[in-house]
């Protein structure tokens, strides 16, 4: 009995090991194949490990180098791969490895402090980029190398206000909006941010972002009737912060908290919430590619900038700098808007924005900075947040936990 068992176990172990090695190689193999064929149209962005630069003779001194570009994954990374990475690879011969993360600057800080930097370019929310820049975690960026608009307007004037900071260059304008499931409210749908806080007339759970107080406090004040241009003035006082938290208190027990950006459309689809805050691009994706009956309330949208920046101490500073200059030129930014409903950061890109690359939907009306959407928009003040983030984070996490 003893010997037989040993043999069985040894055999089982051997099978498991063999299967493991096989699966591992298989996994690797199929991944490469998918990248090569470029048939992967799913929502999941694959790290493009072994994909060789397609066609085109590699030019310049950068050929053969490789860059690690870090971004948010999903449809968003997909849009960057299509609009930035592929043409850049073709033009320069630099191989780009795309890596997903969930935001924040922890990873960057750990790498820089450990002097072991393996990320080159990171896609950040501008407030995070500002903080990282202040803490010396990002390379300074010389805005002079950014190409002018096709009509000759210098880059500095072509970008949206605050679009170029000492360490970072804005690529898109995205928006935090409230979205709802149109099947849940019949003939009397919600129209304003105030309706988001009105659980009586618009019953159902609400989705809010758990990660930090940013967005939530602005949203609460705007719903409470504070005009857009006074939000930060009000928030700068203790009473203003109290007011925002009090407004949030009114729905605290009706909230389902989300973290990754992919969650809100899912919460709506599952019927877990009837209304939620979300990134506008994610809701667009659910509307257009999945045909979900979701509606965006553009009124009172909170606009934010997303930037590209270079991690301090990267070994590929030239390639990273050239990549950012390339990715944020007029054509690239317009190309990206074909894949996802985030607005290009250059004014000169707007007229070039066309139809969705797959679904053929006209993209203009879905852009956060389209005139009909941005009438009552508020620009999130990242400099204000850089100063107040710490104290409000403290209060936010205390409020959440109680």
């Amino acid at each position, binding site marked *: 009995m003893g010997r037989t068992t040993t043999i069985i176990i040894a055999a089982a172990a051997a099978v*498991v*090991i063999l299967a*493991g090695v096989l699966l591992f190689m298989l996994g690797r193999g199929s991944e490469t194949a998918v990248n090569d064929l470029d048939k992967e149209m799913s929502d999941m962005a694959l790290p493009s*490990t072994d994909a060789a630069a397609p066609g085109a003779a590699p030019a310049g001194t950068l050929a053969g180098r490789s860059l690690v570009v870090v971004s948010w994954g999903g449809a968003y990374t997909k849009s960057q791969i299509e609009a930035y990475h592929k043409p850049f690879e073709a033009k320069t011969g630099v191989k780009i490895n795309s890596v997903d993360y969930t935001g924040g600057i922890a990873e960057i800080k750990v790498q820089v402090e*450990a002097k072991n930097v393996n990320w080159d370019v990171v896609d950040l929310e501008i407030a995070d980029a500002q903080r990282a820049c202040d803490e010396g975690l990002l390379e300074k960026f010389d805005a002079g190398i950014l190409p002018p608009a096709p009509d000759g307007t210098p880059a500095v004037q072509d970008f949206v206000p605050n679009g170029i900071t000492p360490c970072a260059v804005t690529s898109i304008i995205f928006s935090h909006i409230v979205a709802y499931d149109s099947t849940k409210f019949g003939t009397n749908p919600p129209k304003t941010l105030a309706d988001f806080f009105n659980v009586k007339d618009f019953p159902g759970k609400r989705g809010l972002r758990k990660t930090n107080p940013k967005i939530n406090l602005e949203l609460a004040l705007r719903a409470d009737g504070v005009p857009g241009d006074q939000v930060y003035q009000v928030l700068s006082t203790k009473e203003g912060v109290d007011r925002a938290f009090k407004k949030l208190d009114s729905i605290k027990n009706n909230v389902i908290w989300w*973290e990754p950006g992919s969650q809100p459309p*899912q919460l709506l689809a599952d019927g877990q919430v009837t209304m939620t805050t979300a990134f506008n691009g994610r809701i667009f994706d659910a509307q257009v590619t999945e045909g979900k009956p979701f509606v965006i309330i553009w009124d009172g949208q909170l606009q934010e900038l997303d930037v590209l920046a270079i991690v301090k101490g990267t070994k590929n500073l030239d390639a990273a700098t050239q990549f950012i200059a390339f990715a944020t030129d007029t054509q690239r930014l317009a190309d990206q808007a074909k894949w996802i409903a985030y607005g290009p950061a250059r004014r000169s890109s707007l007229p070039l924005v066309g139809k969705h690359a797959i679904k053929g939907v006209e993209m203009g009306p879905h852009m956060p900075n389209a005139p009909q959407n941005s009438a009552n928009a508020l620009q999130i003040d990242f400099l204000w947040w850089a100063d107040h983030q710490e104290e409000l984070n403290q209060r936010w996490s205390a409020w959440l936990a109680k």
Partner: protein
Amino acid sequence: MSEPAKRFDRARIEKGISTGFAVAIFFFLLAPLAVIIPLSFNAEPYFTFTSKMLTLDPDGFSLRWYRDIAENPQWFQAIGNSLLIAISSTFLATVLGTLAAIGLARSNMPFRDFFMAILISPLVVPIVIAAGGMYFFYSSIGLAQTHLGIILAHTTLGVPFVVITMTATLSGFDRNLIKAASSLGADPITAFFRVTLPLVAPGMISGALFAFAASFDEVVTVLFLGGPDQRTIPRQMWSGIREQISPTILAVATLLIVFSSLLLLAVEMLRRWHTPPSASGR
């Protein structure tokens, strides 16, 4: 004369109650596992039993979620990573843990209890503290976002299982057997391979299986230390659970239940093998 009958009744009622209670607790323990398996064959993307499933209509069932796994290279990569990391860390933990356990089992080991406590501590130290420490430290020596970093982390977490199982096995081990072997002319190494090893092998293998299972299920150190190339099965499940529990997750879960049942059976067989049926105490 009604007394014994009454007592009999009472005993029956008591037995009924205790059985009922036990069944209820077993239900609590096992229902979550039992529910997931049929739902993973649901033809619809829902987490409840459809009427077609309840009437056992074959149309209500489907293998589509399993096909999803098979067609998704991310899951394949995760399976490969999980096996690579688990097998490597199990190997390291077993070798290091067995050596240490042999030392700990000797009567002349100095500060035995102290060292034992140190070697088992990864089991009880809160995982966030361990993973956080490794996160900063491994980053500074370039081990973050590498397979090796996670293998070392998992070795650390697997070691206590090997040490515990092996010291338990060795405490029942008669050292006179080694003396007998050496008096018969065997050198220590021969004695180890011909006498000690065969006797402690079952304990070693079950310790290894525990370490394997621990690594195969570990997600926190992977969250802290792993990059996109180190995604393991639990890591994939983690993001699946946080973002959206798709039926594909249920299919993976079902496969894992089958897998862990096999591991459990292996461990149980080993236990039967090295403890004679009469001494069934653990």
